[in-house]
């Protein structure tokens, strides 16, 4: 399944034997991942498989119950708060919602990390902000407030802010979700260009197959807490696994059933089990 990585120095993030639970629900079951330096890695899978949770584990916002996440040979959940913050200065994250600060203008949002972490003079901050905004094509929108931006523009501003401190690693949480084809095209292009121009390592969490396959070097497919498949987009497309074929081609039924687990249709319709009433009674009592 997964190809072995010959040169360990090539790996910037490694997830080893990681298990994570939310309450009693198992999100990850002993998974292993390796993200290679300078590459674009797509982490894909159906909604609700914990792809975003994986980014939060890498960024140290969540701690695994078992196993570890190593970034640049640092074990993320063993770091002190200060060390973790130092590590995060070298990471950028693009949230699905953009997560722009709503009381600041576009310009101030991009300047925010620079003002917090550096003591650069105002003229230099201005040049840097304009350069970052120009990279995402929104230099002209610098005076707007986040509420005046479209969804795609907000995400591009958030991208400019995420690269403000020139990170080594960029993490994208569902960057293409809910975008019109134009914005989608712009974002795909931007992620690709930025990765190459800034010498980044990019991790994209998404379920948009076409877009992810067009730029990813590596793809991990995750479902039900396990890595189902790993390889280049071509290898994934040629996979013999029925599950992978269903996911990649979007078949409505297959190893992942169309129906949520339910009792027999006939029994359910005629309420033969008589469970509904007693269940709703119990619900009302609660």
């Amino acid at each position: 399944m997964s190809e072995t990585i010959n040169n360990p120095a090539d790996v910037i993030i490694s997830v080893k034997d990681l298990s994570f639970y939310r309450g009693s629900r198992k999100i990850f079951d002993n998974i292993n991942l390796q993200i290679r330096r300078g590459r674009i890695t797509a982490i894909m899978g159906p909604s609700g498989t914990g792809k975003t949770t994986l980014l939060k584990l890498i960024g140290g916002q969540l701690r695994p119950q078992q196993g570890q996440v190593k970034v640049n040979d640092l074990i993320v959940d063993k770091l002190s708060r200060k060390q973790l913050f130092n590590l995060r200065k070298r990471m950028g994250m693009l949230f699905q919602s953009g997560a722009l600060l709503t009381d600041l203008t576009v310009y101030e949002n991009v300047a925010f990390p620079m003002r917090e972490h550096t003591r650069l003079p105002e003229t230099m901050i201005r040049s840097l902000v304009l350069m970052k905004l120009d990279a995402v094509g929104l230099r002209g929108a610098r005076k707007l407030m986040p509420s005046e931006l479209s969804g795609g523009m907000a995400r591009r501003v958030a991208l400019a802010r995420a690269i403000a401190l020139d990170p080594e690693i960029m993490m994208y949480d569902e960057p293409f979700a809910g975008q019109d084809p134009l914005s989608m095209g712009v974002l795909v292009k931007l992620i690709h260009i930025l990765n190459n121009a800034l010498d980044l390592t990019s991790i994209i969490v998404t379920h948009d197959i076409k877009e992810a396959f067009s730029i990813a070097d590596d793809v991990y497919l995750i479902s039900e807490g396990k890595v189902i498949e790993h390889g280049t987009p071509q290898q994934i497309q040629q996979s013999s696994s029925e599950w992978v074929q269903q996911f990649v081609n979007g078949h409505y039924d297959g190893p992942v059933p169309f129906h949520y687990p339910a009792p027999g249709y006939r029994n359910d319709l005629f309420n033969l089990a008589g469970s509904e009433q007693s269940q709703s009674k119990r619900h009302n009592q609660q």
Partner: protein
Amino acid sequence: MINLLQTLGHSVFSRLSTLGRASSLLMSLLSAIASVLYRFRLLLVQMYSVGVLTFLIVVVSGFFIGMVLALQGYTTLSDFGAESALGQMVGTSLVRELGPVMAALLFAGRAGSALTAEIGLMKATEQLSGMEMMAVDPIKRIIAPRFWAGFFSMPILALLLSAAGIIGGYLVAVEMLGVDNGIFWSRMQSTIDFKIDIMNGIIKSIVFGFVVTWIAVFEGYDAIPTSEGVGRATTRTVVYSAFAILGLDFALTALMFGDF
């Protein structure tokens, strides 16, 4: 029976863990004072939105409270021919009780609810999470300036409410009901003690400001990040604050003025 015990145990446990989270947030807020004072501009901006914007409602309410006090006091006192004590009555009740309590209740409704909603929405829209990922501590950058702004604003608001109330009381007592101007002020001046009345009123308002702002920022920070969760948290802020203010007022009054 077992179910009842289970429910009871669960509810006690969840309340205790909420209290634990609230205390741990408080510790972080208290230890962030240095960074808040270092970045004084952030504090000033918050004092404007928490304090200055609450000024109008506090002053107008205080004015009316003073007017009502004078009216009601006059009807009772005149039965005993003691209208001359009206100034003392209005002044004492305002600086000791109504000033701090009413200002705190209005503060919880106007500023506390706004703080909870603002912080809760920042959490729901991932702004706090985003800040964490930019290696910026949201407690230091967002929560602490708001907490300290509320703490510093509250005593000033309580004093302003008392002052506005005394002016309202004066207008009704002297200008409307004809109580002697000199007696009104001189009785007030001779009976209100700076240490006993005014200082204790200020101490009360400091305690209320501390508790109300703590409740408000904690409820926002701990809110379930959905629109329903933020709505509930805002309601909780107002309800818990009201309980805390009135309960603490009794306790503080008993400590300060109780004779036992």
